[in-house]
């Protein structure tokens, strides 16, 4: 036995196709799929007469999906290290440091590679979800149905919602926290580098599983998957269940990894009160990830059992309850909303000091705001059930707790706004996106106060008003922060500049068309248009057409961004300076792109990264003495 686990020897020529790689993974996925499919039919063909009636064998579909995903992960090499340990090899932290483009398509334990993998992987599914949105708005150009049959329209709505909520949950933590957090805290890697890679590849498998729902006839439930419609639906529903369960597993592991990294891997001197605010945003999100996502996995497991083993958890006629599903789903679902919002807050507060050239105002207040939201987000889920007929005694409590959450959210606003006050504000593209975040989140937050108030919620619940509200908070909050982060950190990630003019065109078209798309939806919702309905009153056609056309412009603004990315990163390739924003944060003190091991010596931190207005060099780069 060698004394260290050594990855398989590098092969050359066509033999390279034999090892652990994406091709092997795809082949094993297909093999796993058919093994599961055949096994499912073999197991149930004779014993469960039920399936022969409906021309649909859910056990077979689930087995096929699960084995396909396992095959995919094994093919990528996730089994190799545990297997080596079982065989007695000692633990090893040897990173897989293959060079070239290939490492982006394989199991790679370099956190910077995983961050970039996430960025493009999420981008693909964000694009698919966005195309779905365009198709939905195309359908709603006319009051009655025209382009897509009713069932297919519901599938589009469900695909859009599920794809966005599932994949975009990791939109900040995946690409940016994975890339930036170790650099910010002075670490050479994440706490669990293989798990880090695993979360990414599970998410990619999940997105693919969801997209294949069209091969099974789609699903009718939207992203919430309410029971008993979920139990009743055809096999496309299985894709939804497997997708969201995989996303839940990925989110749990991602959260676990982030918490472990931030708690244990901080460089010497990086005390909690010096931690960059972005890391606090990531930490609070990760806590929600770790605690909320398992609830989702559990409730989907129950739904899977209902659909295969006929357990009737959610069927009243057999002693179950749809409320069980609604409660469990929103116990996950409401923290999920903050999983989407908190990292956005972290990014905005992190970026404002750089471009206002001032320290973050009220650091402790900002941290307590993030943690307050984390705590309170557990106590509000029944505001999704205000009209559901669930016990009405607790309604004042949920109204109160929901409104209380605007206090810690308000801290973010205060700290952000006061950071701008008397600053030396430089209008860069990332800052524009941060400022838009304030505008959008203000509208999202205020409309949320209407929804938290039971009398007002009665009319707006389940209407386009609530849909406009959460698009203002998620699209207006998360996605704008996502783009701020891209424009801010891409020069660090690739060592290349993004074109500023195209960035500004992207920003202004996106900002204006976003508001032009979603602001009228508040009115449409107040005027009696329910969500997810393929028809609407003919009198609302003008507003709906306005929204649809704005939505198409919004979609086109994304193409400007893609164009910028391709133009700047593939064609112009203008090298970015190591610190183009003159930031005092640790990651910007490293060369661009960052070397594989990040730090030759682990730095010692002597202050927080917001020391603008001081003549001292950035406090975080005090070179390490004896620490290596």
């Amino acid at each position: 036995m060698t004394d260290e686990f050594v990855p398989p020897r590098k092969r050359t020529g066509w033999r390279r196709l034999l090892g652990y790689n994406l091709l092997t993974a795809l082949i094993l996925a297909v093999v796993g799929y058919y093994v599961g499919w055949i096994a499912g039919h073999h197991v149930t063909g004779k014993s469960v007469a039920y399936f022969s009636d409906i021309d649909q064998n859910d056990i077979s579909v689930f087995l096929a999906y699960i084995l396909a995903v396992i095959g995919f992960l094994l093919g990528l090499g996730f089994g190799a290290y545990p297997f080596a340990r079982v065989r007695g090899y000692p633990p090893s932290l040897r990173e897989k440091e293959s060079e070239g483009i290939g490492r982006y398509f394989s199991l790679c334990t370099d956190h910077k590679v995983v961050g970039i993998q996430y960025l493009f992987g999420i981008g693909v599914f964000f694009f698919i979800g966005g195309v779905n949105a365009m198709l939905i708005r195309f359908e709603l150009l006319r009051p009655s149905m025209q382009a897509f049959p009713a069932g297919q329209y519901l599938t589009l709505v469900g695909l859009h919602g599920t794809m966005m909520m599932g994949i975009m949950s990791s939109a900040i933590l995946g690409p940016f926290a994975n890339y930036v957090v170790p650099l910010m805290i002075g670490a050479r890697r994440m706490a669990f580098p293989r798990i880090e890679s695993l979360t990414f590849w599970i998410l990619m498998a999940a997105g693919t599983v969801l997209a294949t729902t069209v091969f099974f006839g789609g699903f009718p439930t939207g992203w919430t998957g309410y029971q008993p419609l979920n139990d009743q639906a055809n096999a496309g529903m299985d894709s939804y269940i497997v997708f969201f369960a995989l996303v839940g597993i990925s989110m749990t592991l991602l959260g676990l990894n982030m918490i472990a990294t931030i708690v244990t891997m901080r460089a010497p001197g990086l005390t909690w009160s010096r931690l960059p605010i972005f890391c606090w945003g990531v930490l609070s999100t990760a806590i929600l990830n770790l605690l909320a996502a398992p609830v989702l996995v559990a409730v989907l497991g129950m739904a899977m059992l209902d659909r295969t083993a006929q357990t009737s958890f959610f069927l009243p006629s057999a002693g179950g309850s749809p409320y069980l599903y609604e409660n469990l789903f929103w116990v996950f679902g409401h923290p999920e909303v903050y999983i989407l919002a908190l990292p956005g807050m972290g990014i905005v507060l992190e970026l404002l000091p750089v471009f206002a050239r001032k320290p973050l105002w009220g650091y402790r207040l900002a941290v307590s705001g993030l943690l307050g939201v984390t705590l309170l987000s557990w106590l509000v889920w029944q505001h999704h059930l205000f009209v559901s007929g669930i016990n009405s005694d607790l309604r004042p409590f949920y109204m109160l707790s929901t409104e209380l959450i605007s206090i810690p959210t308000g801290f973010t606003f205060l700290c952000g706004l006061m950071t701008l006050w008397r600053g030396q504000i430089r209008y860069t593209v990332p800052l524009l996106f941060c400022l838009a975040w304030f505008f959008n989140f203000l509208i999202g937050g205020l409309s949320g106060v209407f929804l938290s108030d039971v009398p007002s919620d009665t009319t707006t619940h389940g209407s386009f008003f609530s849909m406009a509200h959460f698009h203002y908070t998620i699209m207006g909050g998360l996605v704008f922060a996502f783009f701020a982060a891209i424009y801010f950190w891409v020069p660090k990630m690739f060592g290349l500049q993004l074109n500023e003019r195209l960035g500004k065109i992207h920003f202004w078209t996106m900002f204006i068309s976003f508001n032009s798309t979603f602001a009228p939806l508040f009115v449409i919702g107040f005027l009696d248009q329910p969500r997810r309905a393929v028809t609407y009153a003919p009198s609302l056609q003008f507003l709906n057409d306005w929204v649809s056309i704005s939505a198409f412009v919004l979609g086109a603004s994304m193409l400007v961004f893609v164009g910028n990315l391709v133009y700047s990163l593939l064609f112009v390739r203008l090298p970015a300076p190591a610190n183009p924003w003159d930031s005092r944060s640790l990651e910007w003190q490293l060369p661009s792109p960052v070397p594989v091991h990040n730090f030759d010596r682990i730095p010692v931190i002597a202050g927080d990264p917001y020391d603008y207005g001081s003549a001292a060099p950035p406090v975080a780069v005090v070179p390490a003495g004896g620490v290596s």
Partner: protein
Amino acid sequence: MGPKGMRVGGVVLGVALVTAVLVIYIASYLVGNTPAVRATTKPGSPRDVSLYIQTVAAVGPKLAPHPDWVSYLIRDHGRWVRSTVWTLPANATVHVTILNYDGASGLRNPFLGQPQGLVGPELVDGKEIKAFPPGQPSHTFAVPELGILVPVAPVADDAKNPCDVAPCTMAQAHRTITFTFKTGKKGHYRWQCFVPCAAGYIQGFGGPMQTIGYMDGFLNVV
């Protein structure tokens, strides 16, 4: 082009091909392909049309990708086709004949056992029925926006020569339901079955009950 260029080109081409195939498949799924069938018009009176419909317990492999599903069929130019999108003239009188080859399923809401919104009575094998007991109907033909509801009488369980799988012949056990309704103004009216007849699905309402082309469709009133 060097070997590297060829490799990259090959990968790009492969990915593009696979993407194209997927996009075409998904587009065809999304758009759906249920062709509309025009109702037969009586010569000389364009506002007097007739529909000749069949309901079958299993549609069979020739007519559908789901051979086990229950379905409506319509007679179009002398052939039975599986389409549930029917084009009718506005303000017309529609004479409907349903040949039902399916057995009893029963209603979840017994109220839906009474015919509503028709011109004249609903006749089953020539006899008027005012209301069906809840256990009886095989299906309903219902257009809620027009207030039309027609429960469809079942074939007896012990009937001789039943038709299990389409296509069915006139010699096989069936019930003949006839009724008349008026279309009213132009529009796009959905119709559906209210009987939980999708065997095996929870509450009998999955599969064919939630797919246009089987137990659901549209009346295009033009």
